[in-house]
């Protein structure tokens, strides 16, 4: 059931339009196996559309997206799991049943699926919350369950769409550390869309800056300390600070140019 997670992602000359509205234009980006790539850019530049294209939920109007060589939408859908902006936990299921959704969808018996999810709950600091309903969980906890739900699908590529946008600053920093640890334990080729440059530079190996609509990549910056165990140390490091300044400057130029 589990797929080999060491897969490459290739996005070549992708264009996309909703009717007359062009959302993406000649977008090219490549991701190595287990690389975490951040996508930052102005609002409405097509970041979420790009994630949907990567996941095989839509086909690009031009160009091609391939995961491990497979470029048709079905092949991408098979290899990519999406974590949407809102946690979208189903309120009628317990936390563990939410996390185990992909296993149940693949026909696994409930008890088995729960047992497999329970292991991850233990590993990722959610032990004791298995039976809780989503409404009983805090925002951070809900995002953790939502991430595990994405991870449990066992797919080699993760598409994370602003996973922490709705959280307060402190919970957000905690969740970044948590996700960094999770990705160290269970590395995946990951695309992380975020508005937060600092979050992108801390969690990702590389950060791609997108232009305003129709979106394309205007700059790629490598992060100095991706997913470092000591988050506070990493983000105050001069190299990190200067990378952040550079990223912000690029973003500002992009905004001015639009």
């Amino acid at each position, binding site marked *: 059931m589990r797929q080999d997670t060491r897969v490459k992602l290739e996005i070549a000359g992708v264009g996309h339009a909703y009717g007359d509205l062009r959302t993406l234009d000649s977008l090219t980006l490549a991701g190595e196996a287990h690389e975490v790539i951040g996508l930052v850019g102005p609002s409405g530049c097509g970041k979420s559309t790009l994630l949907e294209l990567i996941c095989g939920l839509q086909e690009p109007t031009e160009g091609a997206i391939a995961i491990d060589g497979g470029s048709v939408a079905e092949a991408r*859908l098979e290899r990519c799991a999406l974590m949407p902006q809102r946690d979208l936990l189903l309120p*009628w299921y317990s936390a563990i049943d939410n996390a185990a*959704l992909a296993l*149940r969808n*693949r026909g696994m018996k409930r008890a088995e699926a729960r047992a497999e999810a329970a292991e991850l709950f233990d590993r990722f600091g959610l032990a004791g919350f298995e039976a809780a309903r989503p409404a009983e969980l805090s925002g951070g906890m809900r995002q953790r369950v939502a991430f595990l739900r994405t991870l449990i699908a066992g797919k080699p590529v993760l598409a994370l769409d602003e996973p922490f946008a709705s959280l307060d600053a402190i919970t957000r920093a905690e969740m970044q550390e948590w996700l960094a640890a999770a990705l160290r334990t269970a590395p995946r080729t990951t695309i992380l869309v975020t508005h937060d440059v600092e979050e992108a530079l801390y969690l990702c190996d590389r950060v791609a800056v997108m232009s305003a609509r129709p979106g394309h990549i205007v700059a790629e910056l490598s992060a100095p300390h991706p997913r470092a165990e000591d988050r506070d140390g990493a983000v105050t490091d001069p190299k990190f600070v200067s990378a952040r300044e550079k990223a912000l400057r690029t973003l500002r130029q992009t905004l001015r140019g639009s």
Partner: protein
Amino acid sequence: MHDKGTTKWDGAWKWVLPALFLLTLVGLWQVAASAGLLADLFGLEDFLVPSPAEIGEALWENRSLLAENAWVTLREILLGFACALVAGVAFAIAMHLSGFVLRSTYPLVIASQTIPIVAIAPILVIWFGFGIVPKVLVVALVCFFPITVATLNGLSSVDPEANKMMRTLYASRWQIFRRLSAPTSLPYLFTGIKISIVFAPIGALFGEWVGASSGLGHQILQDNAQLQTARLFAAVAILSAIGLILFGLVALIERRVVTWR
């Protein structure tokens, strides 16, 4: 602690206030009727304006007759409602799954609501006779619309983002329906059921008025003709109680089923 106490107190008042108001109304009615004030006011004989106590007496004296007729009407209500529930949910699912079915039938479903059921009831009697069938059909027709529209609304209210997420989690169309769309639509379905269960007794009443030899509607007509006003009121009270109890039952089931609200 304090908050909890306040909530409990509020909960109690929720019932106490309307109960007190109802008791006051019934009390005033009792005084006005037994003193002959109401009869004088309407210029009627005393027995045509019964007091609550007289209605209670009629209820007790005619209990077996009323119970017999109530059972007939209740059966019509439950059968008609069950038919509407099955047909309404099935039809809503068909409209949800097929754009063709939705586009070709939904406007007709809406338009059908402009046809007064009262006008159709006599035709149903001509077609299906004086038995239980036309009554069940009238009840079903009354209940069908709220159930269908509510279920369809519920199915359409599924978050498209959740739908996409489910697709990336290996969900088939059936699994998306079972694990996402159906539970999402459940609270809507219950709203439809609650609306229709209140109207169902009225449907049964219409069905019986057009042609019946038993049932509360039939008895109300007879009591009206025989000027048995106290018994007539008793039948009305029973019909209303049936509606209330069914509504309460549905609310209870909803609380058991829709546990996430």
